[in-house]
């Protein structure tokens, strides 16, 4: 083999091994980015979805992607556009948010289509935090036989400090606004944002995914689901893991780990992930 050809092949392999950024036009006609790392051909492909307002570069998603790729898995880690072409930054809570969970689901679908066009094997969905909810929502709306498993890491609803009573009131208010075709953005505490500014429709789409709805939806989905939770996740309601257990789905708790499952628990997370992605 000529030397130059060997070098070119080595470069190509290295490129594939270290991953590449791919872009894809989304239904909202915006271009979205994703990190695509090709692994072994006989291994499943894992789609990793980041948390609320984050990107695939956020360290939890990034660590999971790298860890799985190191295990030989094909990994696609897209960044939801949230209305921003080529988004590469976490979107601030205070930004004017026009996106909705439905938009996110549509983008997940586009990425899965793109993935299925390139991989014949099974697909595993892996979400972190609200990304797990969005994947759950997608699964609840789309029956895709090639999706063999959903792994929800640190799955959590868009939490409200006022509790579920506030959620109901907010939902009612937002519905009223939508009904009145009042699209003026509203600002509320939502998830980790003290002041989240969004269109009524967008906020409502996320707000609808209450803890109860997550439990019910998870129970209803036939696709195997594993929830990986941090034993010391301060964002979770005290009984959230117990409620999850009611779904009958597999629960893996990493004791001592927080919401981002990082630090010294990153290796425990990768160990658990390695076990869970093994089909």
């Amino acid at each position: 083999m000529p030397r130059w050809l060997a070098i070119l092949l080595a470069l190509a392999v290295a490129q594939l091994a270290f991953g590449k950024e791919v872009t894809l036009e989304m239904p909202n006609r915006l271009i979205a980015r994703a990190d695509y790392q090709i692994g072994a051909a006989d291994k499943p492909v894992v789609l990793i979805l980041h948390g609320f307002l984050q990107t695939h570069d956020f360290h939890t998603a990034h660590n999971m992607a790298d860890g799985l790729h190191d295990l030989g898995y094909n990994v696609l880690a897209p960044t939801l556009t949230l209305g921003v072409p080529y988004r590469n930054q976490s979107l601030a809570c205070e930004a004017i948010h026009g996106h909705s969970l439905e938009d996110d689901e549509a983008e997940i679908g586009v990425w899965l289509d793109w993935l299925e066009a390139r991989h014949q094997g099974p697909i595993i969905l892996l979400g972190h935090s609200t990304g797990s909810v969005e994947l759950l929502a997608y699964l609840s709306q789309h029956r895709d036989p090639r999706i063999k498993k959903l792994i929800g890491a640190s799955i959590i609803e868009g939490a409200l400090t006022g509790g579920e009573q506030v959620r109901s009131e907010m939902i009612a208010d937002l519905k009223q606004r939508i009904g009145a075709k009042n699209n003026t953005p509203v600002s509320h505490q939502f998830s980790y944002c003290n002041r989240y500014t969004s269109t009524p429709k967008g906020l409502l789409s996320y707000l609808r995914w209450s803890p109860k709805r997550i439990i019910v939806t998870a129970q209803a989905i036939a696709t195997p689901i594993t929830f990986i939770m941090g034993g010391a996740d301060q964002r979770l309601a005290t009984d959230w893991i117990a409620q999850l257990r009611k779904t009958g789905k597999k629960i893996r708790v990493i004791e001592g780990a927080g919401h981002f499952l990082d630090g010294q628990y990153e290796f425990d997370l990768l160990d658990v992930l390695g076990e869970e992605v093994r089909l």
Partner: protein
Amino acid sequence: MSRTYKVIHLSIAFVLAVALLLLILGIQMYLEVHAIHDRMEREQLANGRREIAQAIVDVDRDIRARAERLARWDEVRQQLANPEYYVLWRDARIRADGLMTPTTDSIGLYDRNGHILAPDTGKGALPAQLPLSPPGYLARKSTSHDDLQYFFPIYADPDRRILMGYGALGFDILDELKRVRQFDFVDPDSFSLTISDHATVSMASLASQARFQSPPMRNLDRFMAAFQSALIRLTLIALFVLSLATFLIHRFMVRPLRQISNDINVMREAPGLAAEGGKSALVRIEELDNVRSSLRDYQTRVSELQLALEDSNRQLFEQAHRDALSGAFNRRAFDNDSRNLAGRSPLGRYTLLMFDCDHFKDINDQYGHAAGDAVIGALADCLQRALRAEDRLYRLGGDEFAALLQDTTREQAEDIVRRCQEQIERHDFGQYGLTMPVVLSIGVAQADPDLSFNEALRRADAAMYRAKQSSDRKVVFYAP
């Protein structure tokens, strides 16, 4: 031949030359210091221009960096993708995100067609339509401040292939310059730009369009004030010293020299007068006193020499014109006086007397020459006593005498002749051993102004011979 100058003129010229030299030196120093001041001002301006140029580079870099940060901000691309809530976002988010610095007047976004997403209002409002092809700066001038607006493209993708729209940053250039740099050579408040409103601006050449003033050079100004004050003081001191020097030169040099000169003139015009100048001076110069004393000694010696010379001359004249035996004027003196008298015109009125001693040869022969000489001397003494002071007595030779009487009337002449005879008669010639009487024959000629001296002499001589021939008439007045 070199010109001669008066010392007063030379002293004035010297003082004026010194004053002129001081004036030239003062002016030269003043001009030199002003040249230094001007050079420092020019250097200050050049440094100021360099400072502004560097500050403009810094502002340009900073603005471009902020524009780049804005262009790469996801929320900007979000607004360009969907500007439905642009105004809300602009008013709430731009300020909240820290992009709206105190020096920033406006931030705005334009779509790909160059239309602003929402009208801008207020200070430094952005134009509704993109005014230039970005990136570039636009000048916005008002009475109170000079604004620049920077327009830049915003791309959707990191590779800058998909143009989404444009951004604009408006800022007060002076505030920005102050913010990025502490000026040492520029008074920031004097800064302005000589560009017209809505003109496209090149930051590379903006420094050349800047107008500014340098801050006051307080140290240099203080130095200039101190220098001018010192120069004035030095000038006054120099004028005082010069005046004092002028006074002293005049008092102790010019005046004494002039006094000496006057003394010399006095001595020259009146050799016998001793110059006494300078004795009354309060302060006396030793050297000048020495000169004056030497001149006085010299004058005294010259006077003495002159007197001695005159005495010698007089003695020589006496020797040459006096008869040694009789003491009367000799024949040479008579000839000189007769020539002088003959040369006069008119001769005037005079009387000529001729005397001759009768039998003088017998006296010599009988009593000896010593007795004869004594008789001659006695005759001369007698005649001299008889004559008036202004009359002159001559011994023409042997026993022959002559007397010249100026402006004498006949009566006066007769009186003088009678006195002569009386003196002779009264004199004791016996003392010389004579036993015989001594008789004088006297011829008198009275001359009119028209009569020549020789004729008068001939007449007196003729009258004397006639008296000599007479035994009883021993005085003969010439009568034709």
